């Protein structure tokens, strides 16, 4: 990628990418932290995740401010314009990913007895798949890697499978142990939070793909279908 004639433009785009990478790192850490806090029933760690979400929110505002400034002062065009717009949208989605992690962390205090519930053991594996998707989509954004972005959506199926099997397991568990309904419901909501994170990583992949190529990911799929690939 050639540099811009106006060097400060490159600096500002770099700053935008840096802020997004930082948000992404914090969101990933929040998912990991919330799940670990849940498994270990570590209330202090859970409180840290809840507290840490404020930093993600602040970064989102920072990204928005910088993106608006870039559009106003640099009048970005073509791939630059797509990247700035995508950056703003990505920050918005990462903020919501942070909220999901925060919601999981908030439930830690409620699921004291959850260790008795076997399906809990599946949640860390599910969280890892969702969090890896998020990690890779941010790498794809940083590298403008359309192929990597295009490959991420498929992995959401694994997250959905986790969710569906957890759903069945938890419902069965509740029917067998009515006393556990409150606990199991919390776990079901946690599973739903993780499932949403997988969806959001998929949405992010679509944004990254568009920013990199100027085409919608869906359009390409349709064209592949038409040409019989």
């Amino acid at each position, binding site marked *: 990628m050639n540099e811009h*004639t106006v060097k400060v433009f490159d600096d500002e785009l770099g700053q935008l990418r840096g802020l997004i990478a930082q948000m992404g790192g914090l969101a990933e850490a929040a998912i990991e932290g919330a799940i670990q806090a849940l498994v270990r029933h570590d209330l202090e760690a859970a409180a840290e995740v809840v507290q840490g979400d404020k930093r993600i929110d602040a970064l989102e505002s920072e990204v928005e401010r910088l993106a608006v400034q870039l559009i106003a002062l640099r009048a*970005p065009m*073509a791939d630059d314009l797509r990247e700035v717009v995508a950056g703003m949208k990505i920050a918005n989605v990462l903020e919501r990913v942070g909220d999901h992690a925060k919601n999981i962390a908030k439930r830690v205090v409620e699921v004291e007895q959850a260790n008795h519930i076997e399906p809990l053991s599946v949640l860390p594996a599910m969280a890892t798949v969702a969090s890896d998707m998020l990690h890779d989509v941010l790498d794809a954004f940083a590298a403008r890697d359309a192929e990597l972005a295009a490959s991420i959506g498929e992995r959401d199926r694994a997250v959905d499978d986790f969710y569906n099997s957890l759903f069945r397991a938890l419902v069965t568990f509740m029917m067998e142990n009515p006393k556990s309904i409150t606990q199991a419901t919390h776990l079901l909501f946690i599973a739903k939070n993780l499932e949403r994170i997988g969806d959001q990583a998929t949405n992010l992949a679509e944004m990254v793909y568009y920013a990199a190529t100027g085409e919608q990911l869906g359009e390409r799929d349709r064209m592949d279908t038409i040409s019989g690939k």
Partner: protein
Amino acid sequence: MTDNSLPATKMSARDVHVYYGATHAIKGVSIDVDQENVTAFIGPSGCGKSTFLRTLNRMNDTIPIARVEGDITLDGENIYSPAMDVVQLRARVGMVFQKPNPFPKSIYENVAYGPRIHGLAPVKSDMDRVVEQSLRRAGLWEEVKDRLHDSGTALSGGQQQRLCIARAIAVDPEVILMDEPCSALDPIATAKIEELIHELRGRYAIVIVTHNMQQAARVSQRTAFFHLGHLVEYGVTSDIFTNPRQERTKDYITGRYG
């Protein structure tokens, strides 16, 4: 199968080459200019966009060492054919230049000059109507109607440029070529010209050369990017500015050129 939604082609160039002596300035440009759309030519200095614009009404004929090859048609008629009356052609394909260049005559006479030499309005009342209509279309009437006999050169730069547009319109052209029409104007006068271009769209096919990419993005529906005498990319303006197909176009419009 014919797609009826395709805009009608007003002017068409096929494999056009322009030489200035030994210099090969335009290298095989083929392009269709729509009747309904404003077409912008963009590109770095020396890319040939103004040279190519000037082939569309044979302004290069005035340069002795210039030589034009290839076909350029207006409504299917070859404008370089010996049968073509160049004076008539320039009435049909009008031009507005970078620097406003009103004649050192009254506002009225500036507009009336063209219709008079073309014998378009033999009666004075007809001429008054043509002058008023042209000044109205150029968005200048309200500002000058009480001083039509003041000198055109006494107007502000932006008003002078709109006077030149009125002068071009007065002979009822089919195509208006604009070569950097706003580069000598302040932003407000520029905005008025851009609004005027928007209003004139549809009535005339308009081709504008501009160094200002934002201006091309604002006023045109089709954009052509020229580089080193080649037409690199030509397409729908919103596509060119959000998703150009050619690397050279992208580098230029994103400010990575050179």
